[in-house]
């Protein structure tokens, strides 16, 4: 959940309350507040069709299960049902408001958190540390100030993942295998842009000039002209 989606979802909830209030005012016969809340929530319950889009699950409500259940429950109390059903249906249609919120949040999100920019994934630094994850990685220090200008100088590039793999460890090598891992470090103490909801693992390239950012939705490779290692280190 990111902050864009969270705020839009909140707006939908406010809209539901306002709509329920509108129905309430139009009706002559007044019912208790908790009943309204319960009816609307029950109405939300539906059989839905789910399909993924850009890493989000879109739920398209088809069968108003909640409404059907309530109808069955109040089938012998016609007058009551006449009042209740409006709230139940509001609950069902609210599914589409939530769907709209997700659809709307995606383009807004992409405007704020630009996918191919390194600063989206490396926005704030709290004691950034480089840790070797492979025997070919020598202990390196990292300069916090350099890191910030390093991040702004980076650009995203496409990468030949399979070539990297075969270049790193040729098939025919005999043990013991001496290997130089292309990304022998991970960078910690770095946070993605506030509200993005991104959790990434950041691998640092052997020469200190490239980052491979691994997020649950995919990977991004950034290169820079300058290196990120502390002074006097190559």
């Amino acid at each position, binding site marked *: 959940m990111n902050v864009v989606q969270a705020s839009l979802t909140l707006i939908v909830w406010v809209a539901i309350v306002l709509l329920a209030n509108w129905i309430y005012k139009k009706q002559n016969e007044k019912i208790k507040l908790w009943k309204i809340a319960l009816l609307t929530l029950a109405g939300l319950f539906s059989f839905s069709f789910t399909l993924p889009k850009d890493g989000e*699950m879109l739920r398209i409500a088809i069968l108003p299960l909640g409404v059907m259940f309530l109808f069955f429950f109040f089938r012998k109390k016609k007058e009551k049902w006449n009042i209740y059903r409006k709230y139940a249906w509001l609950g069902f249609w609210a599914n589409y408001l939530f769907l709209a919120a997700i659809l709307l949040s995606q383009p807004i999100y992409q405007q704020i958190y630009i996918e191919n920019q390194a600063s989206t994934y490396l926005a704030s630094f709290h004691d950034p540390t480089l840790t070797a994850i492979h025997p*070919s990685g020598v202990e390196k220090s990292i300069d916090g100030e350099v890191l910030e200008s390093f991040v702004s100088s980076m650009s995203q590039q496409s990468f030949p993942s*399979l070539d990297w793999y075969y270049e790193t460890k040729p098939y025919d090598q005999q*043990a013991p*295998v001496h290997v130089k*891992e292309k990304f022998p470090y991970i960078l910690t103490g770095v946070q993605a842009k506030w509200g993005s*909801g991104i959790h990434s693992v950041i691998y640092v390239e052997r020469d200190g000039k490239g980052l491979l950012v691994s997020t*649950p939705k995919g990977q991004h490779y950034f290169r820079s002209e300058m290196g990120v290692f502390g002074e006097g280190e190559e």
Partner: protein
Amino acid sequence: MNKKVFVFGLVVLAIATFFFRLQLKEPLPFFSENDLIEELNSNGNYARVSEILDMVSIDERHVFVPFVLENGRYGFSAWEWNPSRKWEILAFHSVDGPSLWNIDNRSERYFVYNFPPDDKVTELHVYMIRDRNAWISYDVPAYLPRIQLEENISLGDKRYGVYKMPEEWVELNDRLSENETGRTDQLFSSLFSQHELMHYGWRTVGQNGEQRFIEQEENGFGSSYSGAVLFLSTLSDQDLEFGE
């Protein structure tokens, strides 16, 4: 008036329950050496225990017991305090090499081992490894660097021990699993299960840094009574990568 008595009774009952439960949580003292040998040998295991080398309390609810079997093999058992008021055996191993003990659902992890005496084997190396991987799916490339972390445990006169998994390993694992749970759709989850691909292994090494096994005549065996104590795979040079 009746109501007051009722409320008072309820309060007394609540306090009593609280103290009773508190007392339940306090583990009973661990077995004496003789009782422990008897307990171990009543378990219907393949070989009988002849000597208890030590009883190492990891915390007040977990005890590691290295032992020697009657057939001469070295092994260990792992014990946990069960809140239903008894000490419960989690594992009885006499296979080669260490095991990984996950305590309280992975919040703490320990390498536990008991090697027979052998002057030529001086160090135990344990590893956390995730294999290098690369793929392209629907034109989207992905590359997972190899993770290979190593800890060297010196095997001095004391051939058994409990070695806590380093913080950095635990953190790296958490980081990778967090990356995993950040997902919202399950469709592509298998592609990025970085955390589940992690495995652990070991090898023993002699003075010159070469791999060296400890030969034992009898075959080892292991019984696990819970998933908390895991065998580790034996690694050879082919399974490892070296720097320069």
